[in-house]
């Protein structure tokens, strides 16, 4: 055990796209379809990758989140979300959400259904741990968004220094985290497979560690890094995770 610990190298610096490449967390990121429009209909799938802080060990994919945007009226659009997070001994927590969002800069949620369920290692549901929640925002809740909504909203922001959002976060559509700001950070050439020019936005606020949103020139969100976890765009993410469990 002591020998194993001695051979581990501390990562030492925050996760960036280049560092994720060094840590073998990235394959070649998917290229963005020509007809991709941030305010159109699309599906983005992300692997949830976690880092223990060492280069050689403890880093793994623990889940995925799939977000589908359906633009179905002039005033609102819908986000359909599925998130799997695998726990120890093969237990899986699945969260599904259908969120009606206002067509404002924040994608403020107006109505939603969220459910949580647990599955045993053999894939069997555990009904006694399931929960559901239907919600809706109060009038004037235009300053609010949710974490999944940010994955959508950030893609519609312009790439310039004054581009920013101020909001209160309703994380998972249930946990209130106040006074957040998302602002443009700049453009970076990152050494990742298929070397890319990426634009970065940073989210700061209560109840979270800083989150960096990395987008390609077509405004598609490729990566989100926050402290020891990263959401990595990967069309095969559900298959990768479900085959693991």
């Amino acid at each position, binding site marked *: 055990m002591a020998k194993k610990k001695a051979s581990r190298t*501390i*990562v*030492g*610096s*925050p*996760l960036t796209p280049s560092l994720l490449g060094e840590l073998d967390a990235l394959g070649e990121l998917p290229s963005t379809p020509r007809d991709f429009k941030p305010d159109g209909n699309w599906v983005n799938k992300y692997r*949830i990758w*976690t*880092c*223990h*802080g*060492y280069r050689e060990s*403890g880093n793994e994919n*623990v*889940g995925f989140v799939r977000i589908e945007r359906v633009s179905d009226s002039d005033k609102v659009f819908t986000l359909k979300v599925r998130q799997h*997070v*695998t*726990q*120890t*001994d093969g*237990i899986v*927590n699945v*969260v599904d959400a259908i969120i009606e969002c206002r067509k404002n800069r924040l994608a403020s949620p107006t109505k939603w259904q969220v459910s*949580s*369920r*647990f599955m045993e*290692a053999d894939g069997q549901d*555990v*009904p*006694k*741990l*399931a*929960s559901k929640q239907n919600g809706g925002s109060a009038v004037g809740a235009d300053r609010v968004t949710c974490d999944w909504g940010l994955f959508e909203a950030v893609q519609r922001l312009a790439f310039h220094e004054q581009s920013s959002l101020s909001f209160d976060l309703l*994380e*998972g559509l*249930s*946990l*209130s*985290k*106040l006074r957040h*700001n998302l*602002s443009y950070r700049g453009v970076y050439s990152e050494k990742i497979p298929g070397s890319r020019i990426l634009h970065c936005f*940073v989210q*700061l606020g*209560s*109840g*979270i*560690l*800083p989150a960096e949103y990395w987008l390609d020139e077509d405004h598609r969100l490729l990566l989100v890094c*926050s*402290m*020891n*976890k990263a959401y990595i765009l990967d069309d095969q993410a559900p298959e990768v995770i479900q085959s693991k469990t």
Partner: protein
Amino acid sequence: MAERNAPKHATYLFGRRDFLRLGSGAVALLAEGTLARKAFAGRTSPRPRARNILLIFTDQQHIETIAAGGCPHVRTPSLDRLVRSGVSFTQSYTANPVCSPARSAVLTGRTSCETGVYVNGRAIRSDIPNLGQWFSQQADHQTVYAGKWHLPRSYSSKIPGFEVINTGIGGFGYLCDAAVSRACEGFLRNRSRSRPFLMMASFMQPHDICEWLRLNMQNPGQLRYGELAGKLPELPDNFDFDKSEPQAVKQRRLGNEPAKGAWSKEHWRYYRWSYYRNIENLDAEIGRILQALEVYGYLEDTLIALTSDHGEGMAHHQMVRKNTLYNEAARVPLIFSWPGHIQRSRIDSAHLVSGLDIMPTLCDYAGIGPPQDMRGVSLRPILEGKSTPGRDFIITEVQANTGRMVRTNRYKYVTYIDEPRQQLFDMKGDPGETRNLAADARHASVVADHQKLLYEWESRLDVARRVPHRDAWRDNA
């Protein structure tokens, strides 16, 4: 393997009914044949019982991280709610400022050298019942567990005495804790009310600061997010440290990331800022459970206790993490709330309390007697405002049974095996522990008095056989 010598004529109490009530955890205990009758000396209490009990365990929570407790750097509405609805202690110490040892003490009411969990990743010795086993056997509670266990595995779907409703993910509190609170919420939503429950919600946060340290070890030279420059918390008054500390303490400091990365003061302050964000993340998840208790009608008949396994260095003495006996690592939050029974909104600074007190206190409120050989005491009289002088001293163990702290109302005495340098702090005049008085001849009698307390304490313990330096404290004290 049993660590304890069973009495020569020990008898074993279990009939078929006991067997069924104990559940699978007890089967393992019984298989080893080590649970003597005296270990199950339960009795009933005539006082009001809390129908349900929720024990919230946090991981690595510095005691001064609650807004309602006076911390200006965090927003903690859920922890505030607990503080305002109950009694919170400021002189609350862990039995051992390391994860597994501390948890073993909380869950058994026995010291970590007795449980055999003197370092991380050891199991509680098999003849000592844990909280879930005890409640399963002595009461009619449905005992459920969600989250970090670490006795020995960090997460496990099999925990003696408990039904595990969620495990968790090692090292990733942000993801793990959301699933923990969702499992608890689901459990409260769907359960039958026919039986009372004992629920453990064992969160990982704010332990994610350990991953933060590894991902921010290199001094960046400048703040990564410049807009935080005016918002970082100040360094603590006791940021500097005594250069003549015991080696065991110095080594902790040198082995951690700030020393390796030659941190600037600004980076230290950014670390503190980050730690507070983890606290807020934890608070939100606790809030989900409190809300579920309320929505599903359990709030009025549920006693809630909250504690942490150990604290966090938080830049005091230029320390991070745990495994030292400075107050920042050794003190932990301890809050009890039960509407109509426990006093509201009381912050108790008068009594020295320990993680060892949690087991007997919960047993008291459940109307059952605790297992024998409890090293802690029920805090119920204090929680209900009855005049009580409390205990005279607390002992905390550290670093694989090589160190001890004796905390009395006035002083803190610290000593290590094979270490000539001791520490003595006047906690009234020097609460930051910056002036070591141990070598001062004027305090020789104080040191001797504390050594005597330690000797008397150690002589009563039933130390597990597998623990190193098993007899050293009796010989050295």
